[in-house]
């Protein structure tokens, strides 16, 4: 088991290991979010995905999300593992675990973490469809950074 709380891995994610990183005696709740590979998106069938990351920066950005959660929910503990490489349908791509003394913070913080992953963590998904491939995020109609940088936490 890798002890890092914020981890990019090419291995299958062991969900319980992520949970174990955050559980502690004063936790009354551990919320886990598990992101999996979906087969159908807007009528298109995915055969498999490839994830690529800028690994050291992706891990430091995951840690940044952990710090942001610590500021918003001071008693929360966060661990996040994201898998890269080839993933098949229903494979686990990301596991977020947040513990806190009470459940509300654990629920809210894990939702916060997945939304931030989609904004600031340098990981890219390549869809392999029945009829072709595409790097998601590569198309003009998706996310842009008009200000030059991803928005700071707290801006809208």
């Amino acid at each position, binding site marked *: 088991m890798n002890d890092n709380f914020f981890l990019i891995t090419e291995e299958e994610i062991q969900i319980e290991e992520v949970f174990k990183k955050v559980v502690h005696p004063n936790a009354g709740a551990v919320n886990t979010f598990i992101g999996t590979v979906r087969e159908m998106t807007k009528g298109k069938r995915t055969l498999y995905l490839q994830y690529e990351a800028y690994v050291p920066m992706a891990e430091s950005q995951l840690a940044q999300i952990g710090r942001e959660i610590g500021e918003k929910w001071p008693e929360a503990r966060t661990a996040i593992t994201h898998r890269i490489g080839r993933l098949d349908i229903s494979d686990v791509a990301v596991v977020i675990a947040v513990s806190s003394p009470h459940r509300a913070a654990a629920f809210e913080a894990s939702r916060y973490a997945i939304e931030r992953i989609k904004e600031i963590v340098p990981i890219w998904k390549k869809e392999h469809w029945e009829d072709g491939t595409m*790097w998601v995020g590569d198309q003009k109609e998706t996310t842009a950074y008009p200000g030059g940088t991803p928005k700071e936490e707290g801006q809208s």
Partner: protein
Amino acid sequence: MIQILLFARFQEVVGEDAIGWQDAPITVAALKEQLQRTYEKFPSLDNVMVAVNEQYADNETEIQDGDTVALIPPVSGG
């Protein structure tokens, strides 16, 4: 020299995972403009973030000789 790391589509169109750039210091905005002109195959850099030494940088950031730059197209993890 500046090392420029390429990912996703940028890596595919160039066929390399990194390129070297001799002209430093240079601002992020100027580097993006020059890369766009130099690499005709590049997709538009308009929506692409630049990281300098693993930190997101704004357009005015000056990149120094020896820095590691990464082109970060819109991310799609999760």
